[in-house]
């Protein structure tokens, strides 16, 4: 599993502490019928602002916008677009989110349906899994 194996399978965008790196600021990945935008999120002012993120979504012309930086776990629909913030997998310190809940998200795409499985570990609790579905072009709740 050398470098090339990873390069074919892993997509990386630049984070605020990625110094001296040639990583791109943002990326668009097409999977099935979905165009997915990736950005770390520290570039978006204000951090975590839904409207500001939506502006990036428009700029990249994607159906799904994945951003992070805030360590705040979110998955929501807005104006026919789907927004995902997978939080922090380790629950690491964040200046803006007190006591982040460790979480990660798996995404499954079949034709025009996108399903995410949100795994999170609340304090003093068992791991929870939540399933959310997003159909392209459909209005969400």
């Amino acid at each position, binding site marked *: 599993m050398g470098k090339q194996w990873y390069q074919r399978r892993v997509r990386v965008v630049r984070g605020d502490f990625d*110094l001296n790196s040639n990583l791109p600021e943002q990326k668009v990945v097409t999977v099935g019928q979905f165009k997915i935008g990736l950005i770390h999120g*520290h570039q*978006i*002012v*204000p951090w975590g602002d839904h*409207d500001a993120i939506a502006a990036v979504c*428009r*700029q990249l012309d994607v159906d799904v916008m994945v951003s992070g930086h805030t360590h705040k776990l979110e998955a929501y629909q807005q104006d026919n677009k789907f927004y995902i913030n997978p939080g922090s997998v380790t629950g690491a*310190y964040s*200046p803006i989110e007190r006591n982040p809940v460790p979480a990660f998200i798996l995404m499954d795409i079949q034709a025009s349906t996108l399903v995410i499985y949100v795994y999170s570990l609340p304090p003093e609790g068992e791991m929870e899994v939540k399933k959310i579905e997003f159909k392209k072009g459909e209005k969400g709740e």
Partner: protein
Amino acid sequence: SSGINAEYGREAFNMQRSLDKGQLMDGLRHATEMLNELRTSILPPKNYYELYMMVTMELTHLNMYMSAEFIKENKIADLYELVQHAGNILPRLYLLITVGVVYIRSEECSRKDILQDLVEMCRGVQHPLRGLFLRNFLLTSTRDVLPDDETQASDGGTIEDSINFILLNFSEMNKLWVRMQHQGHSRDRTKREQERLELKLLVGTNLERLSRLEGVTVDKYEKQILPAVLKQLVNCKDSIAQEYLMDCIIQVFPDEFHLRTLENTFLDTCCHPQSQVNVRNIIISIIGRLSNFAQADPANIPDDIKLFDIFSVKVTQIIQSRSDMPPEDILALQSALIKLALNVYPSETGYVNQVLQDTLSIFQKEESRAKGCSGELSKLLRVPVDHYQDILVVLQLDAYPKLFSFLELGTRRDLCVYIAEHVIETDTLIYSHEQVDMLWSMLECLVAGGPDDTTVDPEDFECEQALVGRLVHQMTSTVPDQQFLILSTCKKHLTAGGDRRIQYTLPSLIFRAIHLCRVYHELREEDEKWEKKVTKILQYINSLLSSLVKAEFWDLSLRLYLQAALVCDTMGISNAETVGYEFMSQAFAIYEEEVSDSKAQLIAISLIVATFEQTRNFSEENHEPLRSQCFRAGSKLLKKPDQCRAVGLCSHLYWSGRNREGEGEPLRNSTKVLECLKKAVRISNQCMEPTVQVQLFVELLNKYVYFLCNGCEEVSESVLSQLIGKIQEDMPGLESGEITRQIVKHFESTLGFVTHRQLLST
């Protein structure tokens, strides 16, 4: 040898035929001829053994014939007499043994006398190879007829007689075996020794037979058997015999016997100055056995037998008395002792430390004894780490880190890396600053470096230091005051690492300190000194940041200053505000003086603006200069598009930015927002590239849309329409291409959004 096989085969056949015809005398004559083949001197041991096996198998036919025939007719005694007249001694003795066993089974004689007779008469064959096999035949033939009782049976013979029988056979066999060493030319010595080893089982079987006697009690073993065997071992002065037979003793006799004889008899002989034996293997073997015995059931070891003490003392004696013992042997012995301590006395960490201390003393007294032992010593030092799975226990062993100085630098580093990885993988938490101090001291070569620093591969070095950075996170206490002591201790050690290391290691500390501020803030109701403590932590952070700045890590320290500023902001105390302002200033200073690449500048100023936007507790007295500073810095960027974007970002500061006076409410300064955006538009107008211009216009349009959606009054519909009009005007004139296509799409999505949200009434 095929000739010999043919000979014996023929005689064997004839013997059988005679016996079938009931002609015993003829049978015996043929048997004698067959046995004559065993008188050969030309066969090497392996081949002699094959011949021996075939011949002695034929003798079982004779045995069976005699058992059947002569027991009927009560003429065994005569037969026993008869076979003693065979010509050559070797066939004579084989026949005598064969008949003797039948005789014993007939119960017509004194068993004791016959056995005594046989074992003595075998002295007649002094040729080592032939003698060994002959006596082996004696031992195996008498397997089932040795008396095994205390009380004398009717036909004579007690367990005592059996013991004496076997002991005599054993010592005679050993003498023969040792004699082989001195036969022949010195140049053939290796070959001879190899042949001797092939025959070792013959001698060892005596001991094994002894161990199978049911009547052999631990007393008999202690008082009679072991002393006799050891005497033979010591007196023969032969290292092959000593080594094999010591090991044999360990293997064949039960653990209870060893326990009884351990301290005074067995180990003393082992360490006897005349003993040539490879003490290392013997000791390790016996320790291993008794270890397993103890682990199987702790009750197996009587309370008065302090296994560890016994072995510990002995091993020290052995090492001291053999000044030429190589380091790998010394360490192998210590390793066996440590494993004994860990497995049999798991709660006695003192024992483990004692072994380490003894090793340390040996090496300190005579440094040359440690030469070349790095690999073995390193293996030894991993044992407690692997066993306890808890570095905190290892830290209790005060002799442990002192041994590190005897490791070569490369091996030492590897061990430190191993320990660090182990702590992380087991997620061991080190919760007191004393323990933290000890651990960092132990890992000194990793943390502070050594003379070999420059020779380490840069990638390896980076991995190692990243490991150190991760290790910081394992050092944590839930008690905030203790956590601060931990952080101070870490600082002491990690700053000694020098400029090459701190870029990897200090960020962890800084984030831990930042986190600690939050903890104190959360507990502020319960701790009246919390403000003072937070101030102290901020000073701590500042000092670490200064180190990074001094070492010229600009990008890193700029970002860390911003993170630190954010935490200052959440403290809500005036001390913290001052420090926070100072941190922001430092970030700006670095930005202005040290970030020279234009791409890096845009990234840096964007981050400063984004971070500053999050603060809410700067008084206006501090907030205003910072706002202006952001704006100024943005508008001074070299490239127009960068200026445009940076200034555009600043608009948010006037909208969602907060100061203390607002008490949590955002500034909502519409006028300034529009001013910013208009400035950005003006800057776009100054861009020469039409494509870039229009691209910027569309981005700014989205900013307008954002503020309009969020209720910013100055960003009116007309302002929006105006910009839309401008874009629509310029768009057709753009060169076709991918970028233009994207800009058009962006514009259309934006218009779509405007329509969808009904932002324009027209």
